[in-house]
């Protein structure tokens, strides 16, 4: 995973804006799936509780097809399946951790343990999608952050880790 230091996407996104795409209901600290196919299904099912998404199966279909374009495994144990769909009214992220790791056809051949599934609307009038994707890629490039995300068990810990990584402290 190599990040172009000149990337500007998401550079001005603050921690609270970033965290607004996540939710406790879309936080999975112990993914059960052991294959790429099943982990995509497990992550997509977390979207079913969302008022804006009535049919996560449609989004899963889109995410699977995006994978046929090339694996969204970045290496270093991170995968960011993502895509835009008519079936998403707003941008949402599901975060999941696999303790065992999943063979995700990542470029370095390492199993993936950290998963960020991003779904975004067909149209992106607020230009959220690429900045969000870029910010996640930038953050997970840091080994200490990856280790903290792996160790976290609760959504509150996840939020605190992100705030710390983005230079903000609770109550600051």
């Amino acid at each position, binding site marked *: 995973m190599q990040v172009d230091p000149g990337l500007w996407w998401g550079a001005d996104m603050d921690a609270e804006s970033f965290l607004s795409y996540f939710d406790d209901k879309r936080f999975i600290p112990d993914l059960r799936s052991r294959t790429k196919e099943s982990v995509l299904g497990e992550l997509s099912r977390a979207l079913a509780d969302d008022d804006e998404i009535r049919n996560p199966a449609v989004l899963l*279909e889109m995410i699977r*097809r995006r994978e*046929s*374009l090339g694996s969204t495994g970045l290496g270093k144990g991170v995968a960011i399946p993502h895509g835009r769909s008519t079936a998403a009214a707003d941008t949402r992220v599901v975060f999941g951790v696999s303790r065992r790791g999943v063979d995700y056809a990542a470029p370095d051949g390492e199993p993936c343990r950290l998963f960020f599934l991003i779904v975004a609307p067909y149209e992106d009038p607020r230009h959220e999608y690429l900045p969000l994707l870029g910010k996640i890629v930038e953050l997970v490039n840091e080994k200490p952050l990856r280790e903290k995300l792996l160790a976290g068990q609760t959504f509150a810990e996840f939020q605190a880790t992100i705030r710390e990584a983005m230079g903000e402290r609770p109550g600051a």
Partner: protein
Amino acid sequence: MSDRVHDLVALQDLELMIRDAQDPASKEKEEALGFAVHGLEELQKARETVVKKIPPRDLRLYERIRGKYQRVVVPVRSRICLGCFQALPTMATRAVSENGPLPTCENCGRILYWL
């Protein structure tokens, strides 16, 4: 969501993905972030498979609307068409019968998909 609308959503999503993969600027951005973008043929095949599932009448309507708008199938939220942002009449329904007309917006004519 009916299978008929589902297939049109799948077609539209695929066409968006193909367009992004063919667009040098979009492709460059994805690749700069570290994502592989090389399986365009697979997407083209998937599109053909989806097209074969769609009744000719629905496909003709889809193509006709696409001649006017880039986005043919649009979500409905709180009875608002998210294509033209006009309120739908109270009699508008999400129900789609097997052979009946697809739900469309009275104002813009796009095919409606209820969230």
